[in-house]
């Protein structure tokens, strides 16, 4: 139980210190790139400063990246919400199973879309075609997403077994 308390504290800390300010920063950045597109030319993209005149591409790329980051933050929020059920000793609640599946789908989506975005980013900003099949964070995200989906299925089986056990007189 102490491990759960440490995990919950850590997740709360990350949520307050990283996620909440990040939500605001992304929102401000998104508004700023449409009000003053010159901001985009001051940001380093894939380690290189883009050429002038590619604002629309950069705007689309920024919005896609921001959407991905929001999705990541939302999956972290769902995870934080799920931990509350563990704290209340309700690990086999229907909501936990649903949340694990949602997190899994979102992480898989993040992994796939992230890899595609990086591939496009390299193509646009570095004019290079590079496919890295090694130990990449996107592959880990995909594995993590699938793991959460498997965990959801496992919890579903466990819930069924628990109910059956409770209804055995």
């Amino acid at each position: 139980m102490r491990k759960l308390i440490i995990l919950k504290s850590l997740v709360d800390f990350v949520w307050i210190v990283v996620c909440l300010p990040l939500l605001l920063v992304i929102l401000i950045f998104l508004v700023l790139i449409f009000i003053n597109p010159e901001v985009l030319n001051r940001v380093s993209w894939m380690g290189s400063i883009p050429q002038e005149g590619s604002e629309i591409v950069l705007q689309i790329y920024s919005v896609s990246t921001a959407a991905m980051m929001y999705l990541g933050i939302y999956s972290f929020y769902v995870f934080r919400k799920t931990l509350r059920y563990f704290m209340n000793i309700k690990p086999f609640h229907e909501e936990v199973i649903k949340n694990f599946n949602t997190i899994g789908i979102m992480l898989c989506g993040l992994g796939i879309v992230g890899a595609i975005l990086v591939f496009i980013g390299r193509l646009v900003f570095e004019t290079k075609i590079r496919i890295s099949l090694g130990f990449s964070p996107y592959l880990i995200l995909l594995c993590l997403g699938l793991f959460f989906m498997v965990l959801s299925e496992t919890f579903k089986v466990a819930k069924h077994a628990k109910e059956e056990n409770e209804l055995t007189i």
Partner: protein
Amino acid sequence: MPIEVNLDVMLAKRDMKSNELAEIIGITTANLSILKTGKAKAMRFSTLEAICEALDCQPGDILEFVEEDPIK
């Protein structure tokens, strides 16, 4: 479920109350109620043995197979 529990019938025949039976066989009245209403998914042999002993009957007197209506 096609298996019906006729515990209330046997209780009436033996003129015994639910809480009395629960106390004799050592289960809670809530669990006995689950058994009586047919919500139970399974029954332990030890529970069945205790019920049969308390009500002086056979398992067949308590459990009955009723074929389900295919339209339902």
